[in-house]
């Protein structure tokens, strides 16, 4: 199986590569269009600020490539957010895969949300064998509200989408690569899709 982690200069991709290694697979880091196209599974990571990450995607033409991919694609954290229509952070136009905007937590909670939160209303093959109310590790200041494409909900003073799915596209706000055994299970499920 050919697993490609999109390397566009954003964030902590080493950790994802290591997590996949722990599952017994090797992932390639690449920003090459042909390499990404030919992968069986594509992981779209992202940590940092939305508008500068989007600029890097545009600069390498990946903003056009990603929405056209046909194989399973998993966006993680900022990767998931960039797959949405619009990110309030940096007034950023997203890739428009998930039909929702991403907005800032602004209701009297501490920002960023840092730590382990529970996921519920799980509704995807991605969560096969993962219990309702399992804990996942998150670090984020912006969130996708609950929408039609929501496949996991979390509560941080309000209910929001912790995972999204549309066709071959999956997005998780949490960091499966840092979420202990439950996170490894999720990555394993994605690789088995």
């Amino acid at each position, binding site marked *: 199986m050919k697993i490609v982690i999109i390397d566009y200069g954003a964030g*902590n991709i*080493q*950790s994802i590569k*290591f*997590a996949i*290694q*722990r599952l017994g697979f090797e992932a390639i880091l690449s920003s090459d269009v042909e390499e990404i196209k030919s992968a069986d599974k594509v992981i779209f990571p992202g*940590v*940092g*600020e939305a508008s500068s990450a989007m600029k890097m995607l545009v600069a390498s033409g990946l903003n056009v490539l990603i929405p056209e991919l046909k194989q399973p694609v998993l966006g993680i954290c900022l990767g998931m957010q960039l797959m949405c229509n619009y990110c309030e952070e940096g007034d950023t136009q997203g890739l428009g895969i998930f039909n929702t905007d991403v907005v800032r937590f602004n209701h009297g909670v*501490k*920002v*960023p*949300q*840092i*730590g*382990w*939160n*529970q996921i519920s209303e799980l509704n995807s093959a991605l969560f096969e064998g993962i219990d309702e109310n399992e*804990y996942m*590790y998150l*670090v*984020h*200041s912006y969130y996708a509200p609950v929408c039609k494409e929501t496949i996991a909900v979390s*509560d*941080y003073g309000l209910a929001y989408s912790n995972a999204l799915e549309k066709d071959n596209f999956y997005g998780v706000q949490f*960091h499966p*690569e*840092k*979420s*202990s*055994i439950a*996170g*490894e299970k999720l990555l394993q499920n994605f690789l088995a899709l």
Partner: protein
Amino acid sequence: MLTKRIIPCLDIKNGRTVKGVNFVNLRDAGDPVELAKAYAQKGADELVFLDISATEERRKTLTKLVLDVAAQVNIPFTVGGGISSIEDVDILLKCGADKVSINSSAVKRPDLINELSGKFGNQCIVVAIDAKQVNDHWKVHLVGGKVPTELDLFEWAKEVEERGAGEILFTSMDNDGTKDGFANEALSKLSSELNIPIIASGGAGNMQHFVDTFKKGKADAALAASVFHFKEIEINDLKQELRNHDIPVRL
């Protein structure tokens, strides 16, 4: 619901854990990677590695350690100690650290906080603040509490937040090592005045101290070293006790 975090802290010197660590079933208790794996399995929510080495080799040794931890440990970790530049942070994050913690370098040059959070995002910038009370005023100290500054804890913390820190690790030098509990009054004030998470550090001696720091101190996370290293408190037992007090934990 977001849970309260329990964070063991490992002091590192030349790539090895210092302070006696009393762990059974470890091939090598001085090996930070082995220890980190053990803590992850025991239910720690995060780990902090504090590098106290002062050799010229330190950056190389620390980089290797971070790579090894990232390869083998499946929970988040923060690296601190002697970090003073964008280049320092860049290499640690690239090797797999989730967050970095800065302390003295931020006091000496506060713009560093803006530069780091601007470049890497505030989510990975922890500012550690050591403080103790001088004439009833909480004053920021450097070099493990040895060097006092003129900075007021609460003013400095506010400035740190405004400059873009994602989190504050507050150590009370009055409580550190006493095993008498955390500085909950100061913690609670920090937590209500600031809108970023606060990690409590210094003073953990028993499980009730953790209950108190979450309830009275309103801390978002609690960090400790010796009570975990010497197995005076098992993380699993601690979390059960916290849950018995209706404090949300990952268990």
